[in-house]
């Protein structure tokens, strides 16, 4: 069990580093979603399935979705501004 715990913590550390190192916001949203999923797995390994479920729904689904939609909105606004000029 301790091997699993160490492994999942290393994975989470690698995932967090990957989120920071990803520069493009669009790619970052996808990497952050994967990181959220890893965090969910970590909570499950540490025997808190309730928190794991919340983490997966918020971190892996809701947050990346909001980032993607916000990015789409920002781009649409940018396009509109170019139209006007």
């Amino acid at each position, binding site marked *: 069990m301790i091997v699993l715990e160490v492994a999942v913590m290393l994975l989470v550390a690698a995932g967090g580093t990957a989120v920071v190192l990803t520069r493009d916001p669009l790619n970052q949203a996808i990497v952050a979603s994967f990181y959220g999923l890893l965090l969910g797995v970590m909570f499950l390994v540490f025997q808190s*399935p*309730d928190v*794991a*479920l*919340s983490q997966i*729904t*918020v971190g892996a*689904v*809701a947050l990346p*979705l*909001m980032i993607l*939609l*916000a990015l*789409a*909105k920002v781009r*649409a606004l940018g*396009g*509109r501004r170019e139209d*006007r000029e």
Partner: protein
Amino acid sequence: MSPSLRRRVFLVAAAVAGALLVWGLSGLPDYGIYRGPYGDVLNAVAVGERHATNVVAAVTFDYRGVDTMGEEYILFAAVIGVAILLRAQRDEREEAPDEDAADRRAPGTSNAVRVLGLALLGPVVLFGIYVVAHGHLSPGGGFQGGVVLATGALLVYLSGEYVTLRRVRPEALLDLAESSGAAGYVAVGLLGLAAGVTFLENVLPLGQAGTLLSSGMIPLINLAVGLEVAAGFVLLLSEFLEQTLVVRRPGEQT
């Protein structure tokens, strides 16, 4: 500020923050040691007192029910805030996406995504209902199940078109579901006051532990939260999609 000075300030600040972090971490209890008394107390008494086999749900929806009500209203306020921020501005008029330039339209959905989305829709909605309804028995509850239910709407959008989502998303019904979910929590709490005890105190029969109809008011509260969260997330989603897909342009000055 010159770059070298900035770097020096950063290094000092990072060293101090790092030292504080190490100091704090060294004072933590050892790995795997749990010192707080409340978890053990709750594990011993919660099933007997509340007949809820998921002790976490007994804490969040019963012992600490008022806190969770605040959390629900945080989400409620956030959804309202987004809806107000993204409302149609006075100088904008809606334009159907079909009139838009071809390069700005979303690419068509592939058949693989369409089939997968439609195949997943039923199981996802069923799983969402299951997670909401069994919140007092197993991990899950209204918040998690509500988001799972809302992803059903996302699947409809992914596997169909925005127009399809618009058709299965009657806005008045969503508004009603969200507000009645938010009000439902308070209404369940008021049951306690009506019966002459405190707000949110359980007045319903506890039932047999481990069965679906047990734990008194916890399943009712989970239902209200699930309704609120699912409707709130679908509203958030459609507000954003409305903004990105139905392109709004400034109307002609008249």
